[in-house]
């Protein structure tokens, strides 16, 4: 499948059915203005921007906004923390266009802040070295009290030793994922761990097996997830469920089980390098398989921040789903999760590209998704050294696969709009391959163990909102990469994103 073919297909479709096309209305005038020739009908191609518009903030020249954390303050200002250790306040975060926005510095001198959230008067701040809460006591708009909540983990002076902090869970605990000392080792306590800190500052070791996180966040029911990046024991980047007591796959930090006093169980046995993650998961009960793989160079190269859509429909049709950033690709991906045999697994789709810098921190509000970016140290497609963008839903619903659910004999796809039964009911409109990754101590993995399952039926539901795919040859433990280039909506639209990657760790019974 190539992009060119898609363009031609859709152009033809659009010409036939332009009156029905919601996006075409918005662009047709422009297309006519630009050129009378038919070649300009590529403007009619559905584009991400038609559904999720990007609003880019102008950052004042004296501010370096390598945005590591974003939250709204109680007074409605937006707080943005930076890798350089500052926290800035934006007074009109929802201004559109964002003109006459005032930027003020709330705090400075902190150590690489990758996570903030406000609770009452306090702003909780995850620094590399500690979890700190900040307060402006004298009301001059600048924090003056910096209280250490926990510094129960160690740092050795290696830049890899990042700490990403979550929002508090339902018990008020803040969770942190702590990168290893580099890619392989854990030189000081709790590198390569997830810990959670209670409101009174007690640190509870929670999971081992972390390699190099890029973000942490909860799903709609409050279970905690983080992203880990391709490297040793991580064939590609992935979204992982931080089930307390679980082992997340990289044994580098397992030496610290001896500090935990057994509160999270015994140290898991060492995984065997060169194996497959589901093979090892069957031997190692603590090993929680990666819930969603982000296939390398297909979906991205460095998964980062996580945001859950709990806007009640104010951000479009994806309530309850997760948005995940990719730093290298400067994108936001979309993830649908389900629980199969007690474990989270699911699918990822492209969602929005073209962010200003390397997407790192995400904050979803009722009025849009803030994406903070940086590309210092690791390059990004977005060419700005740092950026702050807001994605707002235009109110138009894009034609997308809404959910992809595993079934014992295939998958069920639901759609955001009714499908055209002819194309959606034709098995030839779908193409699937599967593969997995080597689970190994050396860096990354190519895709391996490729198979091509046979799609035997595509049954369109009577309401047109779902399609049941019956498939011979589902592969447990494999990514199922599904292309749907020929599926059309009843309005003859192609899918805005016509590929999904389902990580089928478990096949439901």
């Amino acid at each position, binding site marked *: 499948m190539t992009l060119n073919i898609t363009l031609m297909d859709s152009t033809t479709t659009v010409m036939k059915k332009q009156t029905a096309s919601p996006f075409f209305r918005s662009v047709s005038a422009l297309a006519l203005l630009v050129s009378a020739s038919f070649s300009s009908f590529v403007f009619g191609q559905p584009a991400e921007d038609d559904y999720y518009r990007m609003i880019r903030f102008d950052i004042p020249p004296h501010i*370096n906004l390598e945005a590591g954390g974003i939250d709204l303050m109680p007074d409605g200002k937006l707080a943005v923390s930076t*890798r*350089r*250790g500052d926290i800035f306040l934006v007074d009109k975060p929802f201004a559109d266009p964002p003109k006459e926005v005032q930027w003020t510095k709330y705090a*400075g*001198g*902190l*150590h*690489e802040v990758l996570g903030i959230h406000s609770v009452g008067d306090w702003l909780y701040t995850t*620094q590399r*070295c*500690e979890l*700190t809460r900040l307060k402006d006591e004298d009301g001059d708009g600048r*924090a*003056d*009290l*910096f*209280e*250490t909540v926990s*510094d129960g983990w160690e*740092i*050795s*002076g*290696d*830049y890899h030793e990042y700490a990403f902090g979550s929002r508090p869970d339902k018990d008020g605990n803040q969770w942190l994922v702590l990168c290893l000392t580099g890619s392989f080792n854990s030189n000081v306590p709790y590198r390569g761990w997830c810990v959670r800190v209670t409101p009174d500052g007690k640190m509870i070791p929670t999971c081992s097996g972390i390699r190099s996180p890029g973000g942490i966040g909860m799903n709609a029911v409050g279970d905690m997830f983080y992203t880990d990046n391709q490297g040793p024991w991580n064939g590609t980047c992935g979204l992982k469920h931080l089930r307390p007591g679980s082992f997340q796959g990289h044994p580098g930090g397992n030496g610290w089980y001896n500090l935990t006093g057994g509160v999270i169980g015994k140290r898991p046995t060492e995984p065997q390098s060169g194996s497959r993650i589901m093979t090892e998961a069957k031997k190692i009960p603590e090993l929680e398989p990666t819930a969603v793989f982000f296939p390398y160079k297909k979906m991205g190269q460095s998964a980062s921040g996580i945001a859950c859509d709990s806007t009640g429909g104010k951000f479009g049709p994806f309530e309850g789903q997760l948005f995940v950033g990719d730093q290298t690709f400067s994108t936001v991906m979309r993830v649908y999760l389900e629980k199969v045999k007690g474990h989270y697994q699911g699918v990822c789709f492209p969602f929005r590209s073209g962010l200003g810098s390397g997407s790192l921190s995400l904050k979803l509000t009722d009025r849009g998704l803030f994406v903070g970016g940086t590309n*210092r*140290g*690791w390059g990004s497609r977005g060419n700005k050294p740092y950026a702050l963008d807001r994605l707002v839903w235009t109110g138009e619903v894009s034609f997308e696969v809404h959910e992809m659910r595993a079934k014992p004999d295939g998958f069920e796809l639901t759609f955001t709009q009714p499908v055209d039964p002819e194309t959606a009911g034709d098995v030839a409109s779908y193409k699937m391959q599967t593969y997995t990754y080597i689970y190994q101590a050396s860096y990354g993995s190519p895709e391996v163990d490729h198979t091509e399952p046979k799609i035997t039926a595509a049954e369109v539901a009577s309401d047109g909102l779902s399609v049941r795919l019956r498939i011979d040859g589902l592969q447990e433990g494999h990514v199922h990469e599904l292309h749907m280039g020929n599926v059309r909506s009843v309005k003859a639209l192609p899918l805005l994103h016509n590929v999904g990657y389902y990580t089928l760790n478990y096949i439901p019974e």
Partner: protein
Amino acid sequence: MPAALRLDFRCVRTVSRTRRSLLGGALHVSSTQYRVLSMRCAIVSLATCISLLFATHAPAVQANPLVPGYERFFAEDDAHTANGGALLLGELNCLSCHEALAALSAYVQTKQAPILDNVGQRVRPEFLREYLAAPHKAKPGTTMPDLLASASESERIDKVEALVHFLASTGKLREAAPITPAVTRGETLFHTVGCVACHQPSQVDFAKLSTSVPLPAEMEKKYTLPGLAEFLQNPLHVRPSGRMPHLNLNEAEARDVASYLLRNLEVAGVVEYAYYEGSWQDLPDFSKLEPKSKGKTTSFDVNIGRPDQFGIVFKALFDVAQEGEYTFHIGSDDGSRIRVDGKEVAVVPGVHPVVFKSGKVKLTDGTHEAEVEFFEQGGGQELKVEYEGPGIKRQSLEYALMPPEDKAKDEKKFVVKPELVVKGRALFGSLGCASCHQLRIGNQQIASAVSAKPLTSLDNEKGCLADSPAKVPDFHLSKNQRVALAAAIKSLNSPNLRPARPTDAINATLTAFNCYACHQRGEVGGVERSRNALFNSNQPEMGDEGRIPPHLTGVGAKLKPGWLKQVFDDGAKDRPYMFTRMPRFGSQNVGHLIKSFAEADPPVADHSVATNIGERKVKSAGRKLSGSQGFSCIKCHTWGNVKATGIQSINMVTLTRRLQENWFHHYMLNPQQYRPGTRMPAAWPQGQVLLPNLLDGKALTQVNSIWRFLDDGDKAAMPVGLGANPIVLAAYDEAIIYRNFIEGAGPRAIGVGYPEQVNQAFDANNLRIALLWHGAFIDASKHWLGRGQGFQPPLGDNVLKLPEGVSFAVLENPETSWPTVTAKDLGYRFRGYRLGEARRPAFRYQIGNASVEDELVATSKKEFTSVRRTLTITATEPIDNLWYRAATGNTIAMANGVATIDDSWRVRVTGGKLRKSNGAELLVPVRFVDGKATIVQEYEW
């Protein structure tokens, strides 16, 4: 004669008349001796023109021995002096036969002939045959005499043949082919690192210089590639007298230069290839395919076919010197395979970027066959074949390739005849070869059977110096050379010979070793104008300073003796911008110069200053002067491995290892006096002080401070302003905080810069002040650009490193030692900080149930201000036996309530008690009143 030439000639004559004595008339023969001539090139080019004019008519002349110093300073008709003769006495190694008094060594620097222990590994017998039969014909300019000049033709042939067989029996030649990339690299090296300071550069249009040390006309007739490469890697091994110095060529460089010099070696077609075309995803079975073409090439060159979809099978012979296990590495884009003697050793399957595979194989010494298969599907193509084994570091197999066996050639191959070896060995002693050449068989050196008259009883017109030498070694001396030698012998034998002066040895040595080819000393020597363009630099904007080796005038007062010795023994590359390398001459050869330079160049006046300013402050001032707040030395001078921001001049960090302190003082005050034409600016023009507020405002104190600062070598803190993009954080009206990895304060450091130009780094791991310093706060660029690895030292000066360890401890009794474990291990907890007035932080931490607030304030706005630390401890229940440690060091002296620690820094604290521990400690008991205690301490440093 054309006018231009006449003009040149006049210039030469004019200069000639003004010559002065170099040896100060020691050898009292001539008062019109030599000096350096900037016109020298004119003479040379004139000579060239003349020789060119006559070249077509003149018969092949057998050249006189060529000694570059002689050619440069003495060869002219009116310069045939005793000095020139003394030089020849050494360079022709006359004294190895004609014994001389040791006292003459200052005048005559003897050059030992090459050591021939393993000459058979290095030099081809065919060359030896030609060379021994007619040395001056086979190598015009050679200093080796013809020992068989008086022999009959048949006798000569017999003796030469025996000598050749004997010499060839000392080793086995190994062959290898020069490959094109190595030839190209070698050509560059040859013309940049310094070879052409003495040898003729190869550019065809470059005038032939009479001062060029001769090489055999066709090098490839003399040397094999491995033999020459080994020689070039350590010339002193074979030629211990250092005339051919050691240029610090590494193994690869030596091979490159050898490849270049032997570029005409006829081993073309060492690799046979068969070329195929087709599209494959993996290596095909080439044996079933029909090659598109076949041929010969010089390397495993995969660029001989079309860009994509082809395959090649290479076959080549290679040679290993030792039996043992060898590892072969084959790397390719796309696939490849190597077989050795028909057996597969490694294979790289598939289509991909370069991937290496390795395999091992046992090989006997001698010749083996490598077969390399390669295929390229698409994209880039690359093939690397490497090997390693006993005595061979991993390198390209191409270096060991041999020409395919050639039966016809093999029949002509030289075979050592044992009966001739015996005869040749006897001749080596009886003819007198052994008088000059060391040759050991086993451990025994062959002795010379030839004896000659001592120097004192030589007749200046007979023997070797006769018009037609008979039954003596024939050196092919020119008339001028004979006259010079006679004059030297006469002078050296004269009862009026004055005792040698240091300058005599210096002049003799710098001439004999051709130091003058690069270095000028006083008026003498320096780069010849005709060679000037051969000296280059990667910093063209530095001008001549960047490309011409430094002059040696006054060098005895400039460089430290230890440094000179190091340069003689190891060579030098302290001027990375200069392409020419200072080679190793060996202190066994030139080490006497250290003493002679010291005697000849009296030290400059002592400018050292005594000051009562503390060492740390002096060094701070030195650092300031070196950095961007001072004279910005770092703008032009490199700092260790850190590049300067402007041109990349000589490394400051090694300065005090190289230079004598007094010389540095004088130089800094007047650079032009010591290095005329230098672009080094005078920071104290005419002694004027531009920064009067620094230290006592005196020039010498300030110069001294730079020396003291630099004397810490690589331990000296980098001056301010280095690095490409510094991000300097500074406190203006309010304090500023920087939490990061700070050198000396740990990974949880909290740096605080105060507006009063004083700073601290608080160690939140151990709840202590780790560093106090003055001036600039910190450069954040290490952590804020790139990924941010490493610890950042303070940017400012006068850094006081406070002792490790926690500040508070409960001591059971006054003898209990201070805990050495961490604050966390003691159960203490860091609690953060509150920003108060001027946003100064008051750190908070918990010691048991006591809360501590720890705030630092500058006591003044003066430079080097002291600071006051206020510790407020509150506890609901007083802690018994809680102590605060105000200071610890090797020594603490108390006077008027001020404690001086290690004669270096001072504190003032109330209620402090001294105790001896592992050194000394100043402890303050924490006394609670109404649940609160306060300790106030001042630091001055």
